[in-house]
């Protein structure tokens, strides 16, 4: 298993090994607590290497409980890694584990189609970049078929040549179309796969489910070796799905399958009453929470204290029934009908829930179904970095470095998910007992989401004036190095209690204005800062993103031990230190020569 194997208890993922399902999990009876009575599904899956050395297929399914079953449904995914390298196995595993975790982390307000396709697009990007960066030139390619059962609806998402079938009333129907291109009689090529290209077209379909439907997902090692009629008969022959998977496996082997063999079967035993059409309509109608006073209770959460209020949102400290303190963030009524704001607010909670890092605050599922729009995070007791700076700055150098290191860890967790924080400031950092924790994702930028056309025009975030990198305001391209800039401002403040550029920085709006302001050496305010550390700060604080560090780890390294290049005094060429003086000097010299020549000619 690779790094993606952190599984949630209700996810069943199986790769190289034969499926062994926990008895408790099978068959899974998933019931919705609130709006709808139970959606009951019987399920079995199997994935075998077959005659190959290694199993490059991955199968998995997730049966959530509680509100997530109503809003997200049951997800069943199958993937077949392409090519003969070990990358193929990793690709299929990545695809299945990621879809089963990230899909459930998408905001409740998103439609199923929107959620799944955004997640698939981001997986595609990830796999593609893995292939690009792979030293052994291995391609991370995989097929992916995803079936989502939600209330009385089903959704299919499909790329490649794995298949989804439906058996209804004795008729077996293939719901997906193989993405194959026939070259000649004997050779067909996969024409579409995850990780093949940056742009990806996903086949999506939405259908009604009925009681008694049987769904079958398979890879080509199975369905290429069992014909349609046999498959139909087999599926009708028994109601023991577990046994069926084994029979199909044996049959494919007997028919000469040389490939990995994977199959998943799901039978809908009960769909309950029809579900609400889609989460978007449900959640967008969720009213904004009223302004809460201490002592009031909303959805079983009692308000203990108002932590912070601004023009855009309220943040409360709340307590659950069993006494766990949590932080509740509610949108401000000022934006009640502002679609862009609501979208951003909902996305905030999504971004938090797809990260698992000690230095990034955890988003918590509400204990009861939401009746209002809000989200919950764990409560980190402790002062914000603002308070720490106000009370203790300048911090001892070693403390500041330690805090910076933790900040870098938190930020890198975001960057690994292709997310930029965009609004790093001391107010958004809590110094808790377990170290530093980032607490606000209100301004985050997520690759893959922003590229998709959205009917809602997004607000343009410019960050917080004193902390956001200059490129936000002068309109240059932003990236991971923009977060690096903000981090360096925080570090500088911890060391000195001052801003590296002084007051002028908050006022500058255009590139020429930014180029005029000067970095103030940290030594000016705190003589204990080593010269080499100051250089590292200055580099990370370059106005031009290109002049900052390539990656955060380099910066961190330069903070922790002297960069040998910087031990001696500055040896910058005059051209870099005073470019304008050089040019002025040159121009002056030119004029002097010209004048000299004139005089020379005139006096002759």
């Amino acid at each position, binding site marked *: 298993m690779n790094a993606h194997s952190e599984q949630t208890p209700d996810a069943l993922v199986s790769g190289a090994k034969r499926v062994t399902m926990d008895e408790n999990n099978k068959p899974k009876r998933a019931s919705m607590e609130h709006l709808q009575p139970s959606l009951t599904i019987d399920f079995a899956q199997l994935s075998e290497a077959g005659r190959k050395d290694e199993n490059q297929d991955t199968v998995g399914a997730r049966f959530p409980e509680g509100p997530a079953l109503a809003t997200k449904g049951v997800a069943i995914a199958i993937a077949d890694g392409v090519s003969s390298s070990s990358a193929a196995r990793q690709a299929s595993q990545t695809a299945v584990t990621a879809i089963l975790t990230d899909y459930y982390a998408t905001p409740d307000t998103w439609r199923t189609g929107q959620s799944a396709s955004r997640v698939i697009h981001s997986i595609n990007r990830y796999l593609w970049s893995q292939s690009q960066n792979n030293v052994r030139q291995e391609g991370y390619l995989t097929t992916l078929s995803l079936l989502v059962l939600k209330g009385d609806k089903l959704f299919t998402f499909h790329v490649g040549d794995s298949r989804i079938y439906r058996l209804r009333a004795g008729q077996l129907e293939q719901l997906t179309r193989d993405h194959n291109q026939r070259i000649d009689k004997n050779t067909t090529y996969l024409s579409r796969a995850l990780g093949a290209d940056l742009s990806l077209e996903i086949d999506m379909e939405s259908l009604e489910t009925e009681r008694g439907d049987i769904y079958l997902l398979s890879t080509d090692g199975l369905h290429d070796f069992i014909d349609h009629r046999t498959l139909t008969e087999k599926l009708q022959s028994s109601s023991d799905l577990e046994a069926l998977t084994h029979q199909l496996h044996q049959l494919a082997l007997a028919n000469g399958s040389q490939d990995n063999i994977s199959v998943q079967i799901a039978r809908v035993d009960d769909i309950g009453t029809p579900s609400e059409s889609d989460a978007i309509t449900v959640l967008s109608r969720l009213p904004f929470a009223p302004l809460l006073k201490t002592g009031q209770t909303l959805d079983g959460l009692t308000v203990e204290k108002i932590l912070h209020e601004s023009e855009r949102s309220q943040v409360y400290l709340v307590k659950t029934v069993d006494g766990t303190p949590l932080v509740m963030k509610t949108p401000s009524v*000022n934006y009640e009908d502002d679609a862009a704001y609501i979208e951003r607010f909902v996305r905030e909670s999504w971004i938090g829930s797809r990260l698992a890092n000690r230095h990034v605050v955890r988003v918590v599922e509400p204990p009861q179904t939401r*009746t209002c729009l809000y989200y919950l995070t764990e409560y980190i007791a402790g002062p914000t970095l603002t308070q720490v700076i106000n009370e203790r700055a300048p911090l001892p150098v070693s403390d500041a470095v330690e805090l910076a290191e933790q900040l870098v860890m938190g930020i890198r967790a975001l960057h690994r998910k292709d997310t930029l924080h965009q609004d790093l400031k001391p107010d958004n950092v809590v110094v808790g007992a377990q170290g530093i924790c980032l607490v606000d994702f209100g301004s985050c930028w997520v690759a893959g989401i922003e590229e998709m056309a959205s009917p809602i025009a997004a607000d343009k*975030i410019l960050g917080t004036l004193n902390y956001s990198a200059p490129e936000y305001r002068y309109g240059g391209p932003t990236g991971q190095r923009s977060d690096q800039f903000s981090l360096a401002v925080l570090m500088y403040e911890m060391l000195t209690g001052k801003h590296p550029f002084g007051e002028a920085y908050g006022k500058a709006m255009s590139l020429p204005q930014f180029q005029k302001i000067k970095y103030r050496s940290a030594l000016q305010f705190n003589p204990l800062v080593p010269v080499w550390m100051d250089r590292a700060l200055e580099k990370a604080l370059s106005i031009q993103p290109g002049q900052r560090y390539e990656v955060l780890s380099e910066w961190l390294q330069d903070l922790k031990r002297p960069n040998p290049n910087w031990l001696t005094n500055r040896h910058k060429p005059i051209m870099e230190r005073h470019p304008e003086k050089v040019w002025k000097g040159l121009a002056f010299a030119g004029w002097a020569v010209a004048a000299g020549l004139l005089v020379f000619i005139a006096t002759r």
Partner: protein
Amino acid sequence: MSSEKLNLLDATKANIRLLHLTWFAFFLTFVVWFSHAPLKPLIMEAFNMSNAQWKALLILNVALTIPARIVVGMLVDKFGPRIVYSLLLAAGGLMCLAFASAQSYEQLALFRFLLGFVGAGFVIGIRLVGEWFPARHVGLAEGVYGGWGNFGSAAAAFTLPTLALIYGGDDGWRYAIATTGMLAIIYSVFFYLRARNTPQGSTYFKPKKTGGLEVTSKRDFYFYLAMNLPMYIILAVLAWKLSPAGVSLLSQGTTYVMYGILLLLCAYQFSQIYKVNKDMLHGAPVPEHDKYKFKQVAILDWAYFVTFGSELAVVSMLPAFFLETFEGMSLAAAGALGAAFAFMNLVARPGGGYISDKFGRRRSMSIFIIGLTIGYFTLSQVSGAWPVWMAVISVMFCSFFVQAGEGAVFAMVPLVKRRLTGQVAGMVGAYGNVGAVTFLTIYSFVDAGTFFMVIGGCALVLFGLVQLIEEPKGHMHEVNEDGSITQIELT
């Protein structure tokens, strides 16, 4: 950290400090804007003015404010409230100095006209206060800002006549007015140094463009267009008033140029409105939850027309009214009594908003309007035979309802359509100024008694209109005894 109650005296909080800073800026704009009103006899004497000329001056004072609001709104979008407010104060101060040193009626008229720009200060502060206060406090904070700021006209009426007397001599009034100008200039610097556009460390969003108002049905589109016409009509009437047909400040040719400019402006605005609503007009469906009735905006427009419009008109003429009605009253006393009208601003305006929040929008608005109707009809009966204290009480009674009505209007503005609050507030505010120009134009034709009567009549019509307003719907939350919150959906 935040608390549930807003403590206006807690100067350790940055947003309270900003609120005080801002309302005082607004206060000064009002002092400067109405510095001429209590000094009427002195100014008229110095320039040998006719009554008609004086009344024209009063109209000129409020005319430029109507277009200025739009310009100031755009400037705030572009440069932020802090610098714009500072510049407005400084510019107002300079024009005030120019007014104080005017040597002819033409100069006087020109500078009064330009001073109308200062009246647009309201817009800036509302934006600034909105940035600094969370939803829980913003209503009260804006009430304090608006109410205490409007009190500036009372302060001017109260102090300037006395100040003029202290300076003494024929030019005493000039020094008094110049003092307010200097004050504004000095404060503009102070404001710039101390105020900030957003709270420290708050995330900065690129401000949204405020163009035409979006409407959600074709009928509303034409309704909206029609509702814009009164602004141009009243400015055209003003141009006519200044033409040779009126006080002859403008030549016939210039008057035609004015008409032309107004026509162009109107065409431009209509094209902007069309641009914003193009999709809707071409049949793009408007989502059900996004629909709203323009009728609501129109009624609020007219409500503000009568309330704020009459307030501006009355504070312009009241000191002189007292002086002329009651024989033997001193200038200082007349000024002080004239201030009685704006005095109620301190409590009535925030109070009106509060009552509207608590007791239902339509009902409270109806009551305020009945009150102010009675008030204006009473004022129309005031004569020299009345004891002065009775007159003062009538004025205060009337002004209480006028200002409570203003508060109630602005409490309802954000509820029409949250997303469009800025534009709705802009239009309602502009109608306040249209009201002022209209009432002062009427005043230029009639005596004070009839003038009050006309306002009372308008208020009666408004009473009928307000009955058509719909209570904003939405989710209501109820707090149970144990503190838990249940939500009741209103349909």
